[in-house]
């Protein structure tokens, strides 16, 4: 019981350390802010043009622009949330790295608290912080969609929140494993920069996978992060596609939209079902958890 209370105290301390560091908080929000600026400046019109070209190919003219506007926003929001689940986790885990660089970890080591409790506290705090930031971003995104065009069924909203729980777990475990090897500020900056700039590309969040060459597309689709993007894409897009269907877009047109904008994902021509994407991301979480436990065990034995 006491060890559990110690764990809660450490989690509370770690969360406070993150939110009291305004610079760290702002750095965590850089990726969503960049995507938002890109969306406002040109991505929105690019997406809408692409949607319209699909509609033209199938002889469909949407009667209501709100659905098209909403779909563009929903696509962006699925990108932002999938990327941020990792980038925010990497930034917020800076509390763990800072403890090493500033030798605060020694203060915890001279306390009668086990190294496992300290490591678990970092993990839980990182999960909570990342989830709070993600929920805030999701809330802002949902408000935007409600304004420009809301066509997401209630079940899909709940599914999105379920997806976030899973994706935050993935991001938290990934950052935990990577950053457990980092003990300098330089290392942390390098990893944060690399992840922030690269992750969106290698998980297919910044542009539709159909834009990539076939070989690259297959490799990217096979990566677990892309499955994270895939499940969010489906839950965000499904309602809009159904709305277009109800307005007269035939099933080939609907499939073309889903295929072209990653609502459906393929490896070598075979479609990956939704359950398989969940399996891939869950399996990866299990592997990362095993790696995290092994890292914690090795670190505690070394000293």
């Amino acid at each position, binding site marked *: 019981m006491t060890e559990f209370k110690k764990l809660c105290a450490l989690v509370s301390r770690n969360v406070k350390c993150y939110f*009291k560091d305004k610079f760290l908080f702002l750095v965590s929000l850089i990726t969503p802010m960049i995507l938002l600026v890109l969306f406002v400046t040109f991505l929105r019109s690019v997406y809408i043009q692409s949607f319209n070209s699909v509609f033209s190919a199938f002889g469909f003219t949407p009667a209501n622009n709100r659905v098209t506007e909403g779909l563009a926003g929903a696509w962006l929001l699925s990108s932002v949330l999938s990327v941020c689940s990792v980038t925010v986790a990497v930034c917020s885990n800076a509390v763990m790295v800072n403890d090493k660089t*500033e030798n605060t970890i020694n203060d915890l080591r001279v*306390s*009668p608290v086990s190294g496992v409790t300290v490591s678990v506290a970092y993990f839980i705090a990182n999960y909570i912080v990342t989830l709070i930031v993600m929920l805030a971003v999701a809330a802002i995104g949902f408000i935007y969609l409600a304004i420009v065009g809301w066509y997401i069924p209630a079940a899909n909203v709940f599914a999105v929140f379920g997806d976030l729980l899973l994706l935050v777990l993935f991001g938290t475990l990934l950052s935990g494993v990577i950053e457990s090897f980092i003990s300098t500020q330089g290392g942390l900056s390098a990893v944060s920069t690399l992840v922030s700039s690269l992750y969106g590309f290698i998980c297919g969040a910044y542009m539709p996978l159909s834009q990539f060459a076939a070989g690259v597309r297959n490799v990217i689709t096979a990566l677990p992060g892309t499955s994270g993007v895939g499940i969010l894409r489906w839950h965000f897009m499904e309602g809009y596609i159904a709305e277009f269907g109800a307005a007269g877009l035939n099933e080939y047109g609907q499939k073309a939209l889903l295929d072209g904008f990653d609502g459906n994902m393929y490896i070598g021509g075979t479609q990956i079902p939704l359950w398989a994407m969940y399996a891939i991301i869950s399996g990866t979480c299990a592997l990362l958890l095993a790696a995290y436990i092994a890292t914690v065990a090795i670190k505690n034995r070394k000293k």
Partner: protein
Amino acid sequence: MDDGKIIEVEGLYKSFGEVKAVDDLTFCVKRGELFAFLGVNGAGKSTTINIISGILKKDLGRVTVCGSEVDANPAQIKSRLGIVFQNSVLDRRLSAYDNLKSRAAMYGIFGEDFNKRLKELCEMLELEEILKRPLFKLSGGQKRRIDIARAIVHGPELLILDEPTTGLDPKTRLTVWAVVEKLRKEKGLTVFLTTHYMEEAANADYVVILDGGKKAAEGTPHLLKNEYASDFIRFYSRTDEAEEILRAEGFPLKRERGFLEAELKGTRSATELILRHPQLFEDYEILKGNMDNVFLKVTGKDIKED
């Protein structure tokens, strides 16, 4: 049973790759005493402290704290010692209150127990006014008081101070020592100190001098000074006459503005000199050798240059 010894270290070895940080170190610290570890950077002081406090594992040897082996029962030992690190390791952006609350929780002190302990610490260290302020907004002396409060938040028997006054101004240094002395008197704390400042080591009950990871000398400051440091006589009058006589008798001499200083083997030598040449001793003083002299003699290094 610890026979009045709170720390016992026997044949301690610790290496980092090819570097022998601690090399066959043996010493003990008695309950209630102010024990000083003296050495230049890299002498092995911090490594030894880190082993005693459970941060590092030893390669070889036996380390007992409060009657328990450090490797056998680390959690029990950790709850009985507190440590003030050379540089503050508390959370800069959190308030003093949040820092103390989170650290107290590590010792199982929560809720009302914490509030009670915090009140005691506030009275003891005058923390009330700075409690709600973030650490990065506090002065060096205020931060040090919070560091000490953190180290004793759980009421330890042993307080380890790793160069606690390095980098502090003289006034803050005095404040820190006033707090430590108060704790020793009121709580009977054993204090294990590492320091660069010889005047701090001179106030210790027992001193161990480390050099290259090995023990170079040990004893009370008085014994060390008697054994390793020379005494000095300063003549403020009849300096020309004294210089002539003492030079003829082979005493090392140093002339400074306003006085002549002669180095003697010990206090007895001074007494003999006074008896031999009473006419020279009109205005003079006898100075005991200090810990600087001891350190220089023992290690061949001047700690002030470190």
